[in-house]
């Protein structure tokens, strides 16, 4: 793929993701979806990194990584199925919306406890090292996550064992209602120093800047087989989730950050670089919206999983206790 194609693909994923995000948020308000964590504002930083990855790389993602998943090839239908928890959902309707998984595209299964994906990511990277494979692991998390025990454990393990692992901190400047200034006294990228790890900061709202930085860092990780912490600075344009009301804590003088909307910045860049015309951009957006509307309506018709489905997959084979309980309940 040449640079133009690379960026057109990236922009398309951004637009598609934005359309999907809007659709789910709207559907949630209409009572068609139970819960959702919007991804608006974090498209560029995820996709800028995704552009630099290979198929075999493994992603320990977090709940706001829909743009990342779409860019890597996960079909929107799979995202919607998870959000609906329907019988086509690969997770069998067991998890709340926004807790995705895609084995085919090497996305691990998202958990709720913040940053609990990070220590396992070191294990995946260790396997790569041990087996002398060439791929790498990417682990993503928010700014709030840097306060957790799991962050500390994973950063130190990755550094001590020289693991091929990219820590991507998606700094949207809020952990629900807590602004970054109250979470910690330093910039996040500097935390890498405490582990003897390389740390960098990049403007995560700018697809082009993000891509350049990610490309350099990912290449270094691939070559040197050592971890890096990338702090991609962005802004949470939407609420934390559909249950959250930012008016409680984002007072008048605090903006919603939309003046730095990564989609708008990317569009400007695409036009400047002659990768896309204004008309093409408009068409991509209209197409995205139509695609999403169509798929969403289609997936919405898929029924819920069967009740007996809740009793499988606790263990490889159900034990007698679960079998008995199933018999009592169904």
């Amino acid at each position, binding site marked *: 793929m040449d640079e133009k194609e690379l960026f057109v693909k990236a922009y398309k994923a951004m637009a598609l993701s934005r359309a999907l995000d809007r659709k789910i948020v709207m559907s949630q308000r209409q009572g068609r979806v*139970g*819960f959702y964590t919007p991804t608006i504002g974090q498209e560029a930083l995820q996709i800028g990194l995704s552009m630099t990855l290979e198929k075999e790389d493994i992603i320990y993602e977090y709940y706001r990584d829909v743009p990342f998943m779409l860019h890597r090839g996960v079909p929107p239908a799979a995202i919607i199925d998870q959000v*609906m*928890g*329907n019988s086509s959902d690969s997770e069998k*309707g*067991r*998890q*709340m919306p926004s*807790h995705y998984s895609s084995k085919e595209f090497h996305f691990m299964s998202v*958990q*709720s*406890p*913040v940053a609990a994906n990070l220590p396992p990511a070191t294990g995946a990277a260790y396997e790569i090292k041990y087996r002398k494979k060439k791929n790498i692991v990417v682990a993503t998390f928010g700014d*709030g*996550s840097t*306060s*957790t*025990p*799991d962050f500390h454990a994973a950063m130190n393990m990755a550094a001590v064992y020289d693991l091929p692992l990219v820590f991507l901190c998606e700094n949207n400047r809020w*952990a*629900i*209602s*807590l602004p970054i200034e*109250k*979470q*910690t006294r330093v910039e996040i990228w500097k935390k890498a120093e405490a582990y003897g790890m390389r740390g960098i900061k990049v403007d995560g709202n700018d697809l082009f800047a993000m891509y350049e930085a990610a490309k350099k860092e990912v290449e270094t990780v691939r070559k040197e087989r050592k971890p890096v912490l990338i702090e991609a600075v962005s802004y949470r344009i939407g609420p934390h989730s559909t*249950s*959250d009301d930012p008016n*409680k*804590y984002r007072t008048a003088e605090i903006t919603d950050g939309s003046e730095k909307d990564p989609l708008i910045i990317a569009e400007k860049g695409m036009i400047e670089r002659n990768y896309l015309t204004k008309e093409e951009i408009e068409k991509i957006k209209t197409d995205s919206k139509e695609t999403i509307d169509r798929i969403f309506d289609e997936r919405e018709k898929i029924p*819920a*999983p069967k*009740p007996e*489905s*809740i*009793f499988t997959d*606790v263990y490889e084979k159900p034990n007698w*206790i*679960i079998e008995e*309980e*199933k018999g*009592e*309940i*169904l």
Partner: protein
Amino acid sequence: MSSKQLNMVQAINSTLDLLMAENDSIILLGEDIGKDGGVFRVTEGLQAKFGSERVMDTPLVELGIVGMAIGMALSGLRPVPEIQFQDFIYTAFDQLVNQAAKMRYRSGGEYHVPMVLRTPYGGGIRGGLYHSQSGEAYFAHTAGLTVLSPSNPYDAKGLLISAMKYNDPVMFLEPKRLYRSIKSEVPDEKYSIPIGKASMVHEGNDMTFITYGSMVPTVMNTVTKHSIDADVIDLRTIMPYDGETILNSVKKTGKAIIVHEAPRTLGMGAEISAFLSERAVEYLSAPILRVCGPDIPFPYRLEEYYLPNEERILKAINRIQEFR
């Protein structure tokens, strides 16, 4: 004596307000409890009133919240840490189990940890695996912890007041499903419900229900709707549970059904059943039954199959009624 119709969120909020106004040792700390007022709005307005030094928005670190609260308590404050969802308490489990619970013992009684850890628990809000757990058995199995769970706004206030006077760590488990679904008449002034005493919320002769928290309304609805002639015991204190009240009732009725939302295996039902068969075997005329959540993680889309309900309680009633 003035009173108000309040739901559980309002009852807890106004109780914290009342207690904080008269005792400046009380400090609340947790994620999003300040400006945001807590994700369930339980602490709404308190930071505005008492300041951010007393209603502390903490970084995202349950281990730090609980650990810091322990140190505050050791220094004579009365911290009230909030864990946003009980499901997220496990990174703080070492501080709870190895520090808070064992401090008095290991220091020969020289140090103690008066802290009231508040946390919403249980299912019924479509929270899936990680916003629905009922982990009370983990806490009740831990010597040194005291575990409370109110089933209505009135009890919430009375139990919280008792907890705040208690000199050891208390797990105050709030059944989030009941936060707004029921109201009770709550007196404006202070009153307390003793720790360790259950409440007999319905009386009868045929059987005894032992339950607590979110399952109390479910059991009560079933019993009244079907005119079951049963004692219904709301534990209120999960640990130490009120063995005496349970035992007296079962000696009278000869039959016991324990109902809780937590998984069956090693849930409170196991302990109460064992307690009864140690002490009341001569009185029992039927098996002691448990109606509980199954031993699986909590599902999302089909959560109604997880939660014990009227139908499952009736099945249990039918089963023990075969025994005479």
